């Protein structure tokens, strides 16, 4: 596993305590797991995602991610309805390891409250929780 300062945390996304990132674009947002989360999990071999049209509250479990070490739950950092899922992960789950903030995205949601992501952590706040 890498040191915190070796990991990548972009400025243009928000972060949750359960290690998800959220990138807002108007009323919708894309989200996935952070570079720290993928590094902790190790080689990811399978991602189980919900169906388009399902709705989840913030904090709800929306899927699972399976690495060679463990299966972990994915939690909603915001509330919303699923409008798209990253089907490409079915064939190339390693995208979550390689490019967690781009090709490794997991779901796109229509936000119940478009301002909800603002309540999440910015890069500096997230990194300081990691350094604890």
């Amino acid at each position, binding site marked *: 596993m890498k040191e915190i300062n070796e990991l990548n945390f972009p400025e243009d996304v928000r972060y949750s305590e359960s290690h998800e990132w959220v990138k807002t674009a108007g009323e919708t947002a894309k989200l996935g797991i952070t570079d720290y989360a993928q590094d902790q999990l190790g080689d990811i071999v399978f991602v189980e995602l919900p169906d388009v049209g399902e709705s989840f509250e913030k904090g709800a479990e929306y899927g699972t991610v399976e690495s*060679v070490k*463990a299966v972990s739950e994915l939690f909603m950092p915001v509330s919303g309805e699923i409008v798209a899922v990253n089907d490409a992960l079915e064939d190339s789950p390693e995208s979550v390891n390689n490019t967690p903030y781009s090709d490794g995205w997991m779901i796109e949601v229509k936000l119940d409250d478009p301002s909800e992501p603002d309540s999440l952590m910015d890069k500096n706040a997230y990194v300081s929780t990691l350094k604890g």
Partner: protein
Amino acid sequence: MRYFPHTPEDITEMLNTVRVKSLEDLFGTIPVDCRRTSDLNLPQALTEWELDHHIDELCGSMAVSPEYKVFMGAGSYEHYIPVSLNHLLSRSEFVTSYTPYQPEMSQGTLQAIFEYQTLTARLLGMEVANASQYDGASALAEAALMAVRISRRKKVAVSRLVHPHYRRVLKTYLAPTDNEIIELPYLPDGTTDLSSLDALDDLAAVVVQSPNFFGCIENLKAIGDKTRAEKTLFIVGFSEPLAYGLMKNPGSQGADIACGEGQSLGIPRSFGGPALGMFATRMPYVRNMPGRLVGQTTDVDGERGFVLTLATREQHIRREKATSNICTNHSLCALASAMYMASLGGSGIKTLALLNYDKSEYLKGALRKAGFSTPFKQSTFNEFVVQFKDGFEKTYERLTAEKIIAGLPLECYYPELPNHYLLCVTETISKQDMDTLVDAVS
């Protein structure tokens, strides 16, 4: 790996390594009031002679083939077991080894389980089979839970012609959950009434058994066609897998999960156990399958090797989120059935299945000729229901005294069927045995 008991020297060495003085010290963290202080309440140990005598007495109290002619199947079947099986199974590498906790150390065990999985998947016509469950009943209950997980629905429709014991185990499994069991009634021809299925949306699964508890062959394709495009999973249970030597297998009829009892394949009846839960599914569902799974891979030198795969779904890693709270298997029973299937081969299984069918058809015909009714008209495999005359239980008792067990009285499971008996004929029953039975009941 063979099992060797530890010598006192081994134990002392291990205690020294972990730096404790005695075995007792290892339990030091368990609170005193949680520990038993008195000895277990067990009878005096018996000598080998006394124990032999005791077991003989117990055996004498049961009606066991070949002393008795047993026309009772109902989930447990008498088949000839090749002598080679007992010889191979008694090898210490197989018979004394426990679940490999360092699985890859035990390549032989893993390969044997892999062969079992392959043969099971082929017999059932499915894409992947696990390393086995405990028995047919628990396999069926696990299948229902799996369907609930995959479909994210809560209702399971179960045919009343699924083995009554399996249904009870299923009920026990589902009782503490908020899932619901809907019972499907049966038709006058001895198959499941599917007419209510169209009205039942939100179903996690449809569960039928074929051959069913009355021995009748269900119309699996009709259900498979209904569920194919739906989220509802189609679960086919069985208690007599030998039937698939003759009948179309569950996979070819659209089953999503095929599971049931494998005792029939090379495992003695042994007063009801130990048994073998066979469990197979389609690849898209493999991550939701309960139990352990052996996979084939190549090692660093490019050689074929075997591993326990997808273990991240299992309880020791995934705790309460595991696909099942049972992450072991019945290796020795699975091995016996793999040896049995391999010994007979595809054509042997077919020939034996045909022999079972022909013999049971002979008895069915002879009983009809003698004036008894076989109320369910649907085709059967090696079991069928006969309606005897009022007061047959007296005849049944007399026959038992004559060492003939004339089937299973169905009334205790189906109160609406007094005087109905479930009879089974396998290759172990001769024509003479059947003629004797017909004469005796006429």
